[in-house]
């Protein structure tokens, strides 16, 4: 891979404190249960349960991955029809979290 002027290694921005007012997002960081389809090496969350309430995922808007130390976190922006949420899957602990309401 030839690169000029851009280093994918420059990921130090994790040290910069985040403004909690970003686009009116509400940070939750709750552990959740998630029903998931693993297909062709990809992860498709189908529905999740938070505080005994079940949310059916209608659309996966976007997904991306981040490495945090030894752990790889898969993030998903999902829509339940009325609301959108960011949920994440930890490849090491196999745990799901509801990160924030978008």
């Amino acid at each position, binding site marked *: 891979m030839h690169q*000029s002027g851009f280093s994918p290694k*420059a990921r130090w921005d994790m040290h910069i404190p985040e403004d909690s007012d970003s*686009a009116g997002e509400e940070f939750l960081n709750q552990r959740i249960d998630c029903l998931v389809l693993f297909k062709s090496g990809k992860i498709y969350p189908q529905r999740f349960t938070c505080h005994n309430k079940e949310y059916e995922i209608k659309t996966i808007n976007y997904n991306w991955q981040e490495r945090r130390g030894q752990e790889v976190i898969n993030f998903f922006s999902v829509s339940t029809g009325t609301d959108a949420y960011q949920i994440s899957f930890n490849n090491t602990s196999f745990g799901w979290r509801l990160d924030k309401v*978008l």
Partner: protein
Amino acid sequence: MILHIDMDAFFASIEQAINPRLKGKPLIVGSRGNKMRTVVCAASYEAKRLGIGSGMSSKEALRICPSLEFVSAEQGKYIWTSEQIFAMLEGFGFPLNYTSIDEFQMDIGAHPEPLKLAEDLQKQIYANFNITASIGIAKNWLLAKTASKVKKPNGVTLITNANLKEVLSRTPLGKVCGMAGKTGAILSTRGMQTAWDLYLKMPEFFEENPGKFNEEPEKPKSIGHSYTLPRPLENPMVIQAWIRLLSEMVGERLRHRNISTKTIHLWLNGPEIGNFGAQKTFALATSDSFEIYSRSLKIASQVPQKRPKIRALGVTASQLIPQEGLSLFLKQNQREGLIKALDRINSRFGDGSIYPAQVDLTRRVK
């Protein structure tokens, strides 16, 4: 032929793809600090139509559009998306280059249907990432890059010898790579308003840029990082922690390229000191982040005020030379071994996985 892919409002488009509520709204992406005290890193096309652009202060942007949406930048997801797009483009089987996080160049040779190929690329990018790209195609990289800016967003422009005059005549000079700043301003005072005016005066500028494929990466003249704090800070421990973090980032990039620096430049900005910048050249070259930090502190000691408030700061390394072999001194060799071990950990688990405890102080102050 070269095909230049330029992602449209990359960071802002990713944020709109992630959060459907932001689609169709004026949006800016700024630093993770306070939204009133940062600069616009990227603006959505809805914001651009209102006159908001990259580099503008967020305060000014919010004055223009009080209902403007603000999202804190998260490099991780932009870099990940960029890498995924690169991997997808590699699948087309043509030589491929990164030119920046949101621009890619493909050498498509004498492809019989370049426009169809460009449209296929756009479709695949949109299907996979829900974001758009503008594409320029021409005989060399400079013309291809210029062409990518002609129809934005989501456009395709092919420059051939037949339409060269027509396309360049309606392209403002500032859209040509390298002409957006002072050079362009000087040339426009000499009557050059469009890319075609420049072509008539300096055809070789457009003709002699065949592309950058398979070239060794250019040796940089300097490597630096700077940061604007959420508000002016006075605590010297916190300011030193920021200098340490910036030194770590500079040192990591030097070591990644196997180069060392002899000259360190420190820049500080604050309400009392204004812009303070000084540099010092040392006899021994280094790529050790702690050494860069120590040298930066020596420069910082030249600031006349005690405990000045600091709003922004930057550390830059210049006079870059190839890294030397083993030192004659055991202690230094041990230190180099330690740095290599830390770099290996960060390389394996992601940058910032292991870092000096001092850096943690940067997180404590908002």
